[in-house]
């Protein structure tokens, strides 16, 4: 489905992604773990094309997308949510979702017809609003919504393009325990054929939803395995207990 081969990225002398390779099965749930500065968000930026790799290749269904722009990769079925909310602040929640749904359906160029009144767009808006539990604030402007609601909308925007591959960058960043369990349910409830990659700091959530876990540290893949294997792994324990050293 999604394959990454020997991906490298340097900023000047600083290597932030070092020879990263992994392959995802269709419908797989992959969690990326790693401490701050491990290069997780950089990896996402490389996957969606917001950064270009120094070397290496990214493939969807065997075809290289490394040369494609951000919008072309989105049309190829890739969608991401951001660690920091990246919304249309001055629009309503409904308009936010409708923009994403129209873009996903490539209904952005009609000159006489309103995409917001298109039945397909409307049904996606309703479905996604239910999925991320924001139906009650659909007509509120985004800037008046609570942080938690905006977090939900952030994921909703990524879902509304109806992607094949969903990349979620710390969906639970900054939210309380109640909402973490809500996100857990949301992810479990996603259609099984959707391939999902999640960057997550909450280990319970990570172990719950993941089929496989990739651990990054200083830009390197230091471990890959099932949640059970990850739990017992010494490297992972060291990283999360804080006494990991790069040269240890």
């Amino acid at each position: 489905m999604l394959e990454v081969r020997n991906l490298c990225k340097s900023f000047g002398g600083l290597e932030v992604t070092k020879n990263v390779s992994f392959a995802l099965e269709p419908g797989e749930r992959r969690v990326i773990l790693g401490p701050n500065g491990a290069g997780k968000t950089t990896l996402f930026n490389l996957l969606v094309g917001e950064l270009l790799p120094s070397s290496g290749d990214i493939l969807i269904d065997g075809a290289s997308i490394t040369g494609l722009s951000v919008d072309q990769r989105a049309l190829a079925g890739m969608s991401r949510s951001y660690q920091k909310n990246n919304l249309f602040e001055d629009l309503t929640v409904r308009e936010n979702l409708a923009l994403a749904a129209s873009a996903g359906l490539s209904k952005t160029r009609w000159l006489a017809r309103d995409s917001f009144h298109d039945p397909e767009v409307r049904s996606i808006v309703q479905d996604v609003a239910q999925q991320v539990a924001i139906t009650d604030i659909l007509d509120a402007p985004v800037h008046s919504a609570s942080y938690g609601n905006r977090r939900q909308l952030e994921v909703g925007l990524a879902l509304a393009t109806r992607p094949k591959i969903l990349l979620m960058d710390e969906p639970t960043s900054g939210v309380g325990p109640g909402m973490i369990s809500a996100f857990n349910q949301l992810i479990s409830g996603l259609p099984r054929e959707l391939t999902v990659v999640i960057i997550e700091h909450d280990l319970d959530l990570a172990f719950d939803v993941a089929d496989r876990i990739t651990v990054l540290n200083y830009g390197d893949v230091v471990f890959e395995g099932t949640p059970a294997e990850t739990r017992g792994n010494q490297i992972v324990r060291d990283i999360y207990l804080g006494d990991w050293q790069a040269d240890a």
Partner: protein
Amino acid sequence: MFHQTPTRSVTLAIVLAGLVAYATFGGFFAREIVIEIAILAILAISLDFVAGFGGMVSLFHGAVMGLSAYGYSVLTAKFGIHPIPAAFAGIFMAATFGAAVAAIASRTSGIFFIMATLAFGQMLYTVIFKSRWLGGDDGMGGIPRFDASWIGLDFNDSLQFAIFAVFGIAVCYGVAALLLRSAFGRTMCGIHGNEPRMRALGVSTWKHKTAAFAISSAIAGIAGIFAAQHTQYISPELLFWTVSGEVLIVVILGGLGTLVGPVLGAAVFVLLKHEVGNYTNHWHIVIGLLLIVTVMAGGRGIYGQLEHWLAGKYAKAREGLNA
């Protein structure tokens, strides 16, 4: 996001009806003023389309209008081509030029975008100013108006031409409003709101902005056709950057991003210019003061302020009902 609210429809209807009445009962000079307002209003609609809703402020809309006027004038006066196809050709030239400039300028944003449009507009001005064939700084004359005798109209009659120009505002407003409510317009507003996110959702924002400028430039081109037919004489002054600056002032004065505001702004601007001009040559001072007041009051413009005030009244009335 654009909404054609009842307040906007009513305001537009009042302004257009007022212009028609003024042209009908005001005599020859009133008609000249109405035509001047109509040309400025159409140009302001075209600028508000990209600046107010697409977030792309330009300083070359005057040049785009002038290009269309020159295209029309050359084809009719020099080559004797029928005015209708010549008008379409002029509008097409404006749209092509606008799209070409936007294709380059859209790689930048903010002040750099404004400067890029200014530079391309001034380049076009200089080319026409220097061209002896186009009359250079002397301009060109002998430009015909549309022949509408087949529907029993005579556009050489000042009243009929004035009403035709007001009709032009209505058509351009309608086209702009329809486009803003379409998928294309929604997407453009989305790009204005958050361009990186729009790209991440799968929209080629660069292509979209270029297309938006082509549309806006075509509307500016319509203003150019009216401008050429109005005085039946054109000069490079039409393309000078101060014309673009003036229309930007009109848009801000009327209400950026309200579509009807710029139409109202054009009427206020031209009427003030002529009324104050009766007493003093320094009419710019009055416009300047008015602009400062509107900007200090929240930058909503005259119409935007009215909408804001009505929204406040409405909210209060609702509170009163709930209490």
